[in-house]
């Protein structure tokens, strides 16, 4: 009961950023902060359709997150929105996720970005900003732990434990530790 209350409080905090911020572009940032946006990209084809599945599943178990898909037009936009922390989550194929981390391949012109893995879905990884609050990461990992069998290709929580570069709060959630 306490946990549920805490979850509600946390997502209320995300969504309670003043909607009356005045600068029009500032309001656009407010939208990005009010919703849990899962970024994908057109040029990494499987990511957008899968991000929609993630959004649908998340909104069933975490309606407070108000999850939405956001599709970047190319890898440069992915890099820009992630590096500037306008987006906190991005779904990429494994090879592109590695390239983002290393600043190689399609990201070689833009540089490396520090990322952590939040969950693995078959050939795709959901990446998160390393400084995204531990509590938020825990809530999301806990949600995936509950719904992974509804998401095609998603690793079981047990197998997730063996991944490298996991966000530390993911391990806490999978082990059943309390929310940080």
């Amino acid at each position, binding site marked *: 009961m306490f946990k549920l209350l805490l979850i509600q409080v946390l997502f209320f905090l995300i969504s309670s950023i003043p909607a009356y911020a005045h600068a*029009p*572009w500032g*309001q656009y940032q407010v*939208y990005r902060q009010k919703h849990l946006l899962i970024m994908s990209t057109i040029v990494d084809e499987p990511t957008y359709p899968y991000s929609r599945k993630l959004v649908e599943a998340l909104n069933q178990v975490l309606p407070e997150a108000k999850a939405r898909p956001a*599709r970047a*037009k190319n890898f440069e936009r992915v890099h820009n929105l992630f590096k500037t922390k306008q987006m906190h989550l991005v779904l990429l194929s494994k090879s592109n996720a590695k390239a983002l981390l290393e600043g190689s391949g399609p990201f070689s012109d833009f540089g490396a970005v520090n990322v952590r893995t939040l969950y693995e879905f078959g050939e795709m990884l959901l990446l998160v900003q390393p400084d995204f609050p531990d509590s938020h990461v825990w809530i999301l990992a806990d949600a995936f732990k509950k719904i992974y069998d509804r998401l095609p290709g998603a690793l079981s929580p047990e197998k997730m434990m063996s991944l490298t570069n996991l966000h530390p709060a993911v391990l806490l959630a999978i082990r059943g530790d309390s929310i940080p």
Partner: protein
Amino acid sequence: MKKIMFISILATFTVLLPLIAVADTSDQKWMTKVEVKKEGPHCINDKNCFNRYHPKIKAVAKANVGDMIILHTRDALDAEFTLNSVPADVAAIDLGLVHPMTGPVNIIGAKRGDAIEVEIVDIVPDEYGYTVIIPGFGFLRDVFTEPYIIHWQLTRIGAVSPGMPGITVPYEAFPGSIGVLPGMPEIRKILKREAALAGAGGAVLTPSPGGALPTSICGKNGTDKDECLRTIPPRENGGNMDVQQMQVGTRILFPCFIDGCGLFAGDIHYAQGDGEVSGTAIEMGTVTTLRVRKIHKGLGAKMDMPATMGNDQIIDMEPTRFYQTLGIPLKEKGEIPPTHGYLGGEKIGNLENLNEDLTIAARHAILQMIDYLVSVHGLTREQAYILCSVAVDLRIGQVVDVPNFIVTAVLNLDVFDKYRHY
């Protein structure tokens, strides 16, 4: 015998050939042209494109009075969308790229303090256009909070969309943005007053180097990055005026703030209602032709703002049938619309009726129009908002009958049948 026939045929051709050549008029020329083409897919790839205002931005061409200035222009969001775009794409756009302008073109003989009279000669639309709802932007940004996109298929007969079945929006193109470069005195004055407004909570975009072009002047390491004006607000130099009466055939007087004036255009709209309430019109790329008809010596120094001159263009745009809603400054008790947040809520928050307030009256009128489009024409609320943005005109009824000034919303009912061309 064959030889005689061959000679006869040859002779006939020889006689007729000049006549055939004369019959083709395409080689008859009288225009002098200055053409500024697009280079590359986006503004960043194009030396003829910029998206901030500063007098140091160099002219890419020069033109004489009377020359046809042909500008290949980009859409407001710099080719962000395609026919396959979805609302999720609107959530991941880069607003630092707004608005790509083509130019500037210096007008030979124009000096600071003069005014140039610019005629809009022609606007050739791309095949594709779009209208979007951008979260946090637009007149009803507190009501329509989710991203949305409508794709338009454009011809000069009308704009149609699979997302707006049964609707054809007539072609009434004009430059959303057209203007001249500000000078340094204007830049300083504008920055000062806009900073003061921003400090008071106003909706102001201060200089921002992210995505700014040209990078050498306005980008992150640009020489003048703190003085490059954003293109969103219209100002004394024109720019993003979004005034649909600036149709082909009209002439706009611009005061010149630098020698050569620095004429530019972009963000051309296929059609737009007065108000552009969703924040976007039917946005498109074009080939737009302008012509400077006259330099008015010394006139610019006496002008506050640009002015438009026209003939019957304003009549041609009028609907033959219309539906009109009437708005007065009414709102819900406790409601503080986003346009009024910076004024503070203490005084107006609990009022249902505001005093002599055209903005709230316009809001009242457009909300009623959306209700009408939904209930009578079966549109979704998002479709209705989009249609209001491209085909509904907000007009001032009166500004005397205190406290209830009236703004009306006029829907061109022709969109439902007159121009249909499936």
